[in-house]
């Protein structure tokens, strides 16, 4: 495996902050090189330097195949053979697969018009090397998340990239799609392409990586062949503190009092690409943490969206033994339900608003018995939550767009907890946040359950579901496939129920 990209003593300083401090990184052709580190460790800054988005401070050196080089911008980086696939895919949904692959470098005829035939032919060739069964003329909007990611990879290959950087590539993939992606990555490795793989999921590092470089506080902590690392070592190097267990000890607080009773819940008029959720029956008990597991597309989120009044449904929902009618989220909220949605930026937060305004949005009436909002009371309550949940923010007036993912997530949780709902639904509560914050979110959920709240946790992270849940309901193809008591639940049994 030959050395392709070398970074030596690379630093990056922003006004007032040193984001990277003399980082070393070596990426070889034909290797999968994982980049591990908590949020804020410097992974994204390093990535942006590799792709020419940022320029490194003078003093460090970047070498490609031994030649010192200055990466001017993203176009230059691509010409040098470095491509990146961002976590949030950048595709033009209404254009076809081929049009996306050749965006901004469309082949032209001598006349100056588009050479569509050539574009589709070349796209088909690239897709064939990935063994992808997708037509070049399919609009991207019709593809699944996993397929879209493959198209991004196809695009990177068509640029003749030597190195492809992947930022949390499995974050929005189903289990099946993730498996396909891993296969694809192995194939790229065989073709001699170097992969820089960034993920929060440690399992994936051990599954796919040949080498791992660990960043902490903007510095390289270590760079090791994967065979020399264990999970414990990796975590310790990342966080620099002992996490005796990633997940704390489990205590069950469930009572026998039924809080939420759902019967025959069926999705009304599902859209073409949606799971046809049918006849969902389940109960949630006071103080219980109920896990919902299923592959992406199985219908977990749809079930919660029906309960929260975001989607039309038939069937009955009873809270505290009384049947309730929920047509709108505001109805669900009035009946004591809170919903920490999966998509923080799209559904959870008003990014342009500050911490205080986001926090109070769910329960503004608590500070405004009449028409006017009592700003003092609002700020004081918000400060209490910022303190008790350990939200790192300069003040309650900071705009949430400037906070890290973990802190944003805590604000979304805080805005619901402050309402004291009877039932709290949390969808992928720890996606994209680092290990430390994850443990804090889990501890918080356990604390809320011990106070008598009923909590529903949806997660694609199987170890997380197992760690936090008192019971686990497995959803498959829009129906409940099986329900497990904690004692019977294991990774194997649950996966079996979700896929069989």
């Amino acid at each position, binding site marked *: 495996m030959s050395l392709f990209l070398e970074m030596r003593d690379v630093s990056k300083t922003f*006004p007032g*902050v040193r984001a990277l401090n003399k980082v070393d990184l070596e990426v070889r052709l034909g290797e999968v090189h994982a980049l591990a580190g908590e949020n*804020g460790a410097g992974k994204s800054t390093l990535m942006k330097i590799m792709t020419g988005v940022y320029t490194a401070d003078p003093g460090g050196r970047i070498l490609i195949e031994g030649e010192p080089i200055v990466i001017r911008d993203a176009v230059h980086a691509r010409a040098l053979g470095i491509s990146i696939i961002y976590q949030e895919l950048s595709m033009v949904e209404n254009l076809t697969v081929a049009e996306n692959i050749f965006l901004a470098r469309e082949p032209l005829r001598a006349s100056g018009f588009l050479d569509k035939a050539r574009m589709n032919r070349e796209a088909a060739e690239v897709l064939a090397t990935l063994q992808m069964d997708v037509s070049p003329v399919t609009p991207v909007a019709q593809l699944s998340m996993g397929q879209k990611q493959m198209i991004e990879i196809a695009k990177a290959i068509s640029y003749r990239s030597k190195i492809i950087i992947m930022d949390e590539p499995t974050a929005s993939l189903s289990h099946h799609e993730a498996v396909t992606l891993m296969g694809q990555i192995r194939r790229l490795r065989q073709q001699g392409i170097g992969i820089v793989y960034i993920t929060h999921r440690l399992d994936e590092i051990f599954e796919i990586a040949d080498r791992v470089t660990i960043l902490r506080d903007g510095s390289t902590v270590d760079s090791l062949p994967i065979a020399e690392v264990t999970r414990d070592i990796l975590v310790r190097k990342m966080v620099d503190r002992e996490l005796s267990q990633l997940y704390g000890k489990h205590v069950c607080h469930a009572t026998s009092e039924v809080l939420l009773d759902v019967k025959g819940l069926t999705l009304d008029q599902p859209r073409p690409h949606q799971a046809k959720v049918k006849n969902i029956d389940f109960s949630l008990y006071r103080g219980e943490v109920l896990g919902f597991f299923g592959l992406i597309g199985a219908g977990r989120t749809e079930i919660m969206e029906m309960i929260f009044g975001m989607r039309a449904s038939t069937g009955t929902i009873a809270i505290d033994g009384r049947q309730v009618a929920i047509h709108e989220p*505001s109805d669900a909220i009035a009946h004591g339900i809170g919903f920490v949605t999966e998509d923080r930026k*799209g559904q959870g937060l008003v990014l342009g608003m500050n911490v205080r305004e986001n926090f109070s*949005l769910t329960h*503004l009436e608590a500070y405004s018995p009449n028409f006017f909002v009592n700003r003092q009371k609002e700020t004081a309550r918000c400060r209490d939550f910022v303190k008790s949940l350990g939200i790192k923010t300069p003040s309650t007036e900071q705009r949430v767009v400037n906070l*890290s993912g973990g802190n944003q997530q805590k604000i979304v949780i805080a805005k619901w907890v402050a309402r004291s709902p009877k039932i709290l639904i949390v969808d992928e509560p720890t996606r994209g946040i680092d290990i430390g914050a994850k443990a804090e979110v889990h501890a918080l959920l356990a604390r809320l359950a011990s106070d008598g709240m009923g909590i529903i946790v949806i997660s694609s992270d199987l170890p997380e579901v197992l760690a936090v849940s008192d019971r686990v309901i497995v959803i498959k193809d829009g129906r409940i496939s099986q329900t497990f008591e904690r004692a019977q639940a294991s990774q194997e049994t649950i996966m079996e129920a979700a896929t069989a």
Partner: protein
Amino acid sequence: MIVRDSPATAVLRPRHTAVGGRVSALLQVRELNVLTALLVVVALISFSTPYFLTTDNLMGVFRSFSLIAIMSIGMVMVIITGGIDLSVGSVMGLSSLVTALGFQSGLPTAVCILGGLATGLLFGLFNGVLITVIRLPPFIATLGSLSIGRGLMYIITHGVPLTPDTPDVFAEIGQGYVGLVPVPVVIMLAMTIVFSVVMRKTRFGRHVYATGGNEMAARLSGVKTGRVKLLVYMLSGLIAGLAGIVSFSRYLSAEPASGFGAELDVIAAAAIGGASLAGGVGSVEGAIIGAALAGIIANGVVLMNINTYAQQAITGAVILIAVSLDVWRSRSKGA
């Protein structure tokens, strides 16, 4: 969890000295850009002509932009929700016509005024229902209302202005003074204060900003976003109706072309004042300052003997400069 300063938070962190804190707080005020622009323009004009800074002239200027300013209050609320109301010019005209029709039929003044306000409110309700129930895009819905409103005016008047007899007391609304200050300016100031407080200090105001900032997040937090939008369009209509009454009282003639094209001036005022057409951002005060800037430029052009035909181009240039500065500044803040 371990959190380090991201570059953005480090830059944004307020300085912790008393004076520094106050200065940086002041600089956070979005309206400052346009206020600065306003002061610069005022200084320029008053240096080049002695007639500008006279009470008579100033009060005249204030009165002339007050109608646009009043309507910009409704408009900026609509824009903050992420919408637009193109119908305000027509609604203003139709409201003044309905008021005039009332006087022509010999109805009492109060009834005539209520008729004008009701016209505005109904149009706002119509817009709001099209947008929240039928889910038309605001641009299309209010474009339709613009045409319907204007069309109704031509149908009713056959193109001939209506000049009914009115009691003297009614004329006070558009022509009278409180001390040195024209009544329309007093109405504008009063409404500015009321709606500024509504937008800053009330639950409704917060919901307006949240709806425009991220409608989905607001709805999922329990904000009845449909109702919020319905209300802002009703308010915009009602306020345009009020502007129509003031306008009729001022000229005592309901012209079929009254308010024609006014929506563009009103939208410009809101945009100059820092409102983002993407929603979530803007303020009542900003819109008023924006209207003042446009109005003062118009007056300055006349006083400085610049070709009046150039006035529109100058106003356009000022809009672009003011908004560009705003965009540039918010980007350099990294926000």
